[in-house]
């Protein structure tokens, strides 16, 4: 029998299977339990570490739950006004073309108030990566309807469910971006299972590679959950996401480079 005090002896490098990525800081994440934001951050941090990008990376954080993202990844950051991250990133990349420049934005940020900046930066083919967390809701302000909220879905500003006749239809902005000549690689992924995490990580790695080659805008949508806004447990929220979000926002590549 292993005595409790023996735990110290098992903490050895050769027994380590999972640890905090170097690029993640010691700060405690502000996200609700089970929220996809944290997982998405971690994957990005792993890529920055593995690809040796710490001194190259300049991130632009949005207004939304991930507004404090600059506290969590140990790289240089700019905090943008609501929706304006792609414009901010445009200038960074134009002025520092050798750096790895990305934005990280929610659906309200990217697909409502920032629609023009999203479309036009992609249409100019700005050589940046846009990571788009689509949780179908305004998480930060307490669960209001987003442009991506599903038909019939309840939120604090669609308490009887989204009525598409008066509130419009959920916007598939990623599909629009994929039609623009300036976009190079456009994909929709998720981070709710280990397998999906792997795929998303692969997508980010590709986007890093394409940015080095100056290929144009890469946009990775991550369909994610918001247990608090959706008023569900984390487990329920992931199930609900699979059953309701994925049929409307199917996972997979929307635009892949012809290589």
């Amino acid at each position, binding site marked *: 029998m292993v005595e409790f005090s023996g735990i110290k002896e098992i903490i050895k490098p050769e027994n380590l299977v999972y640890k905090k990525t170097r690029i993640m800081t010691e700060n405690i994440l502000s996200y609700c339990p089970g929220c996809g934001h944290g997982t998405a951050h971690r994957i990005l941090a792993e890529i920055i570490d593995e690809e040796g990008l*710490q*001194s*190259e*990376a*300049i991130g*632009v954080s949005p207004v939304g739950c991930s*507004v*404090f993202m*600059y506290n969590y990844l*140990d*790289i*240089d*950051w*700019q*905090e*943008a*006004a609501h929706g*304006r991250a792609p*414009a*901010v*990133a*445009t*200038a*960074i990349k*134009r*002025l*520092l073309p050798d*750096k*790895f420049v990305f934005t990280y934005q929610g659906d309200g940020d990217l697909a409502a108030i920032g629609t*023009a*900046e999203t479309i*036009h930066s992609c249409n100019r083919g700005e050589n940046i990566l846009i990571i788009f967390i689509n949780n179908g809701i305004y998480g930060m302000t307490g669960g209001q309807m987003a442009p991506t909220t599903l038909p019939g879905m309840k939120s604090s500003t669609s308490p009887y469910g989204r009525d598409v006749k008066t509130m419009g239809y959920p916007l598939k902005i990623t599909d629009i971006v994929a039609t623009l000549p300036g976009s190079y690689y456009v994909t929709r992924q998720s981070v709710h299972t280990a397998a999906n995490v792997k795929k998303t990580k692969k997508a980010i790695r590709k986007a890093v590679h394409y940015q080095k080659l100056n290929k144009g805008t890469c946009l990775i949508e991550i369909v994610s959950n918001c247990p608090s806004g959706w008023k569900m447990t984390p487990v329920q929220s992931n199930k609900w996401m699979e059953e309701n979000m994925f049929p409307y926002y199917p996972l997979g590549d929307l635009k892949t480079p012809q290589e």
Partner: protein
Amino acid sequence: MEKELRLMKGNEAVAEAAIRAGVDGYFGYPITPQTEIIEYLMEANPAETTGMVVLQAESEIAAINMVYGGAACGKKVMTSSSSPGISLKQEGITYIAGAELPCLIVNVVRGGPGLGTIQPAQSDYFQATKGGGHGDYHLIVLAPASVQEMADFVDLSFELAFKYRNPVMMLSDGAIGQMMEKVYLSPQKERSKTIPEWATTGKPSTRERNIITSLDLDPNRQELFNRKLLAKYDEIREKEVRFEEFQCEDAEYILVAYGTSARVCQKSVQLAREQGIKAGLLRPITLFPFPTKRINELAGKVKGMLSVEMSAGQMVEDVLLSVNGKVPVYHFGRMGGIVTTPEEVVESLKSKLIGD
């Protein structure tokens, strides 16, 4: 090196001066009466010579946020617009002030409110000097009165912007932007290679990560930051006031005017003196910081002051505060894009301050 003499519009002079000042990036959106700035830059194509980035954004909102992004990289970046476009930029401007970023914003003012007119006006004084966007902040505001000054103030703006880590606005108007005058242009400067220690350029292992933000949810820290800004503005008020006096030595009446109105008032002073009225002109060159102290001093020696502006009366409030009740202060102004005539000013001076 010798300065080059050219005949140019004010707008063109800003553009050429920007290239020569070694500006790293210009981000704009067309709007009359300042569109020549981006047209000139696109034609000059400085990407091929100095490496300056010139980009036509999808809106003034995008343009000012590009300025934010570029400024946060420690680069010399600027935008220009006219009144309606400047209103759109206000959110970005307050973020820039809140993140303490240096940049230049040129406003070639036209009459308003709303879409207004494309003719010159000075009706954005409040917006420029009192904040414009939300929150407690100030821009440094320079008011050129000639094509030469539109050129010269580009360099000066960046000098002040970087010195204080504060956005600078060049508050011009449609008359100075559009008129042609001779201008002496400074020789080409190299684009700066120095990177300020706060700039986000990718975190080397030798320093902590740099974060550019205007967010702090902790009320105590936010208030501390507000106090820091106030201290900065006080220092600016102390050290950076610029103005010009014209025949103020023996004056009994002072006209206070900036930009186009100041040029008109120079003639008014002459006309008034021909009629035996001892008039003088004080021309604020910095609108923030305002020449409060000097106006207060002069108020002790004269019988009254007239604030002459192409607006319904905006700067007059600062003149009143500066004079602090010592002598009567009035406003005279035309609106709607009409440039005041020198004669009108003299008439107003007589009817309002001297009496018939």
